[in-house]
């Protein structure tokens, strides 16, 4: 998953939202495009696209996103439709639900994780050894 940094890369999709390090947001931060947080957010964070939480960022909010990379501090329920990556500087306190989860060594996670199990038909059969 790639978090885009330039709006040109969207090519017609919704614009990117960037919350700078000195910015404090209170309320429901919702966007139809990618969200990049480097500051402080309380309330809710919602996007159907990608969310990037920078190393200095602090989020005390419920998070709902398509994909997410967390390198900062997040306290709250986290619902991710596809991929969630918690990087080594990331600290997560709250329950997670996602399709795929990666946690880098050094990251901190306190809470439970719910992942949808692949259905029987989705798994590839193991080839029998001759």
């Amino acid at each position, binding site marked *: 998953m790639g978090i885009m940094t330039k709006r*040109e890369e969207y090519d017609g999709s919704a*614009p990117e939202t*960037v919350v*700078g390090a000195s*910015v404090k947001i209170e309320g429901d931060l919702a966007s139809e495009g990618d969200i990049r947080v480097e500051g402080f957010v309380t309330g809710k964070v919602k996007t159907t696209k990608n969310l990037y939480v920078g190393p200095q960022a602090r989020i005390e909010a419920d998070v709902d996103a398509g994909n997410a990379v967390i390198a900062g501090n997040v306290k709250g329920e986290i619902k991710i439709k596809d991929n969630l990556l918690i990087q080594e500087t990331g600290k997560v306190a709250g329950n997670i639900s996602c399709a795929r989860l990666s946690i880098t060594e050094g990251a901190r996670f306190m809470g439970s994780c719910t992942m949808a199990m692949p259905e029987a038909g989705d798994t590839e059969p193991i080839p029998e050894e001759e």
Partner: protein
Amino acid sequence: MYFYIFDPGKDKEVKYFERIQGRLLNLLAEHHIEGETYRVTSIRTVELLAQQAIGLEARTIIVVGSDSTLNRTINTLVRSKADITVGFISLDPDSRLGQIFGISPDIGESVKTLAGRLVTPLDLGEINEHYFLSKVELGENQFPQLEPGLFGLASMRKFMKLAPFEVNLSLDDLYKVSSEVFGAQIINCRNNQGCRVKLGDPTDKLLDILLLNKLSASQIIRYRRELATGCLDNVPGSTIMHAKKVDVLGPRKLPLSIEGQVYTKAPATITVAKQQIKMIVGKGRQF
């Protein structure tokens, strides 16, 4: 019917206008877009002429003048709820709106653009019943495009004098934003030349909010060239948000200006206006 508002402006522009007037009229006839022409005077203001065009049921008004002439014409049309297409021939070679709309400062090229009649409905920003095409700057810190000078020293000296200020906004009544900033802009459309991020699409029904974080003296020195471009997003760490409605909550009496002119003070509400303006744009437009 084409209704031309000729606003030669002052001094330098008048001389330029008188030089090109004959050629311009010939070009208009050549492209079959000639019409009634009226020249702005101290008595016949831009607003009066725009009203006259509405009264004459003109289908297209062509503004020949500066960005300010275009803004004044559009304000009159929107307030009168007139369904008139607007074209623009800039007499200012550095016209920001001309660059945004892809209208060349060359008279021949701009007449060709008008004759091409590529009409696009554009969003307008609204602040206290004043409509704007470009952007609102919050606070006293303005960021025009500057000639950076040798090693960027000229622009650096200017930026060193600026002081950071606190800003409090509410976006779409959904969330509140507070920050100490060095600059703040609410953009409907802008000239994106030299900017890192393409912002200010006047067809997306959104305003772009751009906040430049407080900068230390060493950061001002480091980013002097980026600041001189006038694009706050060129400085790393800037905040970019999008909304249909922005309430500037405070601090009280924070000046809000358009094109360097203060229109109101905080608290104030800036929205995407319900009305759009139909504008003839060029192929080189920035959106």
